[in-house]
């Protein structure tokens, strides 16, 4: 339990992706079977428990110490699992510290009442607060240490090393504690078989096109174009009676979309965009967001927010793996398939024929009325491209629409993490609004922490330090007046109404596009400019 606890502890405070990979990979290399397999399952979210509710944990600790002292402790720490892990009194003569696998197996074989007794006995036996904290994270469901399932799989793949796509393709036929996976990664046995129905196929992704360089080298005749829809890229599989819906990282989200899966025709694996479609029209992204990340599926919500797939590609048809076929051939089969099964739950992402790059650029800049207005841009796919895992350079490009731009004023800066911990690198910016008396004031509209070079970061950091007004822990407020302050040209992809922000608006993907050292803050944009953009989006 100690090594696993130390891993979680470090992950929870580590920001850098590479450092996280090192921590997980080193753990998986050194921990014994089956501990490491259970740990991997917990990290990928394939193993969760909700064996203990907060009320039970609280009762258990209050039975062991003065409740007033516990209340003060909890108030001070602010997090129940952490407070309990710290105050849990040592019990002399407690049992031997349990291994991670003993805990997992103990939880799996226990009824709810039994599990609670076991959890208390383990808390008694674990010597370090860190271990008790890890146990409480494990039994209350969801580790939440800032590690994606994909990164955990990448760390496992690094043991081989093998490409992470191989691990991903295998994933859904593997079972925790994955001893066969580790045996293969360490060269001790054959690769486990991936021939199980409705498994996840690693997804093919596109490079962003570099307009200045790429078009000169590319022949329009080699490429197909279609809209890049603004939803969630998914893979839908229906094989051997098994239906599954995966995100592009292989997370199984089938349970959240039973309405969609019920409508999925058999013997097929489709790549597409998950959207909310009402009366044949794509609803705003915010509508899809309401259906994501829900544990309990709400019948009313399914009716008001019907999910659908707009199909891009066909990966499997009956017994045939079509991924090695050229895109042109896959597309033909996809069209035939959708034609046979077309309905409100599945439609086709239409091709956009074009002769020249200029013509396509015009289409992208000025999409026809209807759904394309809300598209993120265009996708370019070589007619002869096979469906390859990962992000190969050349066969597929994404060509996003030009972002929205506004000029906003830097208001607050926060210190970054990891490499950036000595820099003020997270910026809250605002635009001008007016109070009823006509007095102009800045209202925050968003936050961005990328889009600038290291050199620019140094310059902004210096500006923040030289123009600090107040400090609040890691945050500084910065001078922002009509004639003194710093203006950012902020780029963003979309805008929606939000009650979480004072301004009532929330941006999608905001980033610093340019630093306007030359521009007086008084000339930055007003809130009305954002309202106008929003109105355009809402009427589109």
């Amino acid at each position: 339990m100690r090594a696993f606890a130390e891993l979680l502890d470090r992950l929870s405070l580590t920001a850098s992706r590479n450092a996280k990979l090192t921590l997980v990979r080193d753990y998986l290399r050194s921990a014994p079977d089956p501990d490491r397999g259970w740990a991997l399952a917990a990290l990928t979210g394939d193993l969760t428990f909700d064996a203990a509710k907060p009320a039970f944990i609280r009762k258990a600790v209050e039975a062991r110490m003065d409740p007033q002292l516990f209340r003060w402790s909890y108030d001070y720490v602010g997090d129940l699992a952490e407070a309990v892990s710290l105050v849990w009194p040592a019990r002399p003569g407690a049992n031997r510290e349990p291994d991670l696998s003993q805990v997992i197996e103990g939880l799996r074989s226990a009824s709810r009442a039994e599990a609670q007794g076991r959890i208390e006995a383990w808390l008694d036996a674990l010597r370090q607060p860190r271990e008790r904290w890890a146990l409480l994270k494990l039994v209350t469901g969801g580790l939440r240490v800032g590690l994606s399932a994909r990164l955990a799989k990448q760390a496992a793949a690094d043991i081989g090393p093998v490409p992470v796509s191989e691990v991903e393709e295998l994933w859904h036929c593997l079972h925790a504690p994955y001893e066969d996976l580790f045996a293969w990664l360490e060269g001790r046995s054959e690769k486990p078989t991936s021939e199980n129905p409705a498994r996840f196929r690693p997804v093919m992704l596109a490079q962003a096109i570099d307009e200045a360089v790429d078009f000169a080298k590319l022949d329009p005749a080699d490429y197909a174009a279609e809209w890049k829809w603004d939803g969630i890229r998914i893979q839908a599989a229906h094989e051997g009676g098994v239906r599954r819906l995966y995100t592009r990282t292989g997370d199984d989200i089938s349970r959240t979309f039973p309405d969609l899966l019920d409508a999925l025709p058999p013997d097929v694996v489709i790549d597409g965009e998950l959207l909310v479609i009402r009366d044949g029209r794509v609803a705003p992204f915010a509508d899809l967001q309401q259906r994501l990340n829900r544990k309990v599926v709400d019948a009313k919500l399914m009716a008001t927010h019907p999910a659908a797939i707009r199909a891009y590609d066909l990966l499997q048809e009956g017994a045939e793996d079509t991924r090695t076929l050229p895109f042109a051939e896959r597309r033909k089969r996809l069209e035939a398939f959708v034609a046979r099964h077309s309905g409100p739950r599945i439609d086709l992402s239409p091709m956009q024929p074009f002769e020249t790059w200029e013509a396509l650029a015009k289409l992208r800049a000025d999409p026809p009325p209807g759904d394309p207005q809300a598209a993120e841009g265009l996708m370019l796919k070589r007619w002869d491209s096979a469906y390859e895992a990962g992000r190969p350079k050349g066969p597929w490009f994404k060509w996003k629409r030009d972002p929205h731009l506004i000029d906003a004023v830097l208001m607050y800066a926060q210190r970054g993490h990891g490499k950036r911990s000595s820099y003020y690198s997270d910026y809250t910016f605002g635009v001008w609004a007016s109070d009823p008396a006509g007095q102009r004031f800045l209202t925050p509209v968003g936050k961005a922490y990328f889009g600038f070079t290291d050199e620019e970061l140094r310059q902004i950091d210096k500006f923040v330090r030289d123009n600090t007004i107040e400090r609040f822990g890691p945050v500084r407020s910065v001078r922002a007046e009509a004639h003194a302050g710093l203006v950012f040209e902020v780029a963003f992809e979309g805008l929606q109404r939000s009650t979480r922000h004072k301004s009532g608006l929330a941006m999608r993907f905001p980033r610093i596009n340019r630093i306007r050292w030359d521009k007086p803050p008084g000339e930055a944009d007003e809130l009305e400019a954002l309202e106008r953009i929003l109105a355009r989006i809402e009427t589109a």
Partner: protein
Amino acid sequence: MIRPQDLLCPKPEGLYCAPGGFYIDPVRPVDRAVITHGHADHARAGHGAVLATAETLDIMAERYGRDFTGSAQAGAYGETVTRGPVEVTLVPAGHVLGSAQAVVRWKGLTMVVSGDYKRRRDPTCPPFEPVPCDVFISEATFGLPVFRHPDDGEEVARLLRSVAQFPERSHIVGAYALGKAQRIIRLLREAGWDAPIYVHGALERLNALYTRRGVDLGPLEPATTAGRKADFAGAIVIAPPSAMQDRWSRRFPDPVSAFASGWMQIRARARQRGVELPLVISDHADWDELTATVAELRPGELWITHGREEALARWAELHGVPARALALVGYEDEGDD
């Protein structure tokens, strides 16, 4: 019958001993002061006369210059000094080099001012000595049951594991300049780390003082920019806590920021400071040490000077020891700069 408050009572300047005419750890300049240890919030410059251990006087002179007080008197551990009718004895507190409890006796009444203290072993100073007393006046910096400092050897082992795991990065350990920095260095030496340890300029004078006083810190190098960034790959650097988020830290390759402090027990504190590797190493007594000390001494009364007084007071009351919070102001939390 004399009352404890006739011997020692809290005043805005600090704890005042009326019959002896002196203050203990006064936060403002006074005529006569007894100083328990050299941390700046307890040991201030400008008093008329100071009684402290020779090590503490040495530390004060290093920080404030030779003329930090009108006159100085060194009291050896265990030696009794009189101030009028009052006897004062300095007894080891185990906090930092030279740290002492002030044992004050008058008319058969014994009161012990713990100063800051801890009960566990520290390779840079002698251990706390319990003195039976009528009133124990305790600190309570970590006076909440959430503060349970782990074994410091295990914390240093975690640091060394991280150094091995990330050989291309440097590890900057934030540590209080007096006491914590030298203790970390000693613990690293005991754990077998004999490579040079790089130190921030702000630590150099106190390191030299510790070395003069017989604490072997091994090879130390200034953490200057003379070399290339890569020279610090795999290095351990000790710096005052404030330097870690300072521009100073940019000379190191992708540094892992570590921080050695009792506050690092609380995850949110580590997160706020951007600490990637919190090391729970403190020079103060944790909850278990505070309560065990009260249980061991079983004083007639417990007074609490500063920290989270209410929890320790409650614990003492629940265990039959009358307790009183003095709420003295001016003493800072450890490493809370």
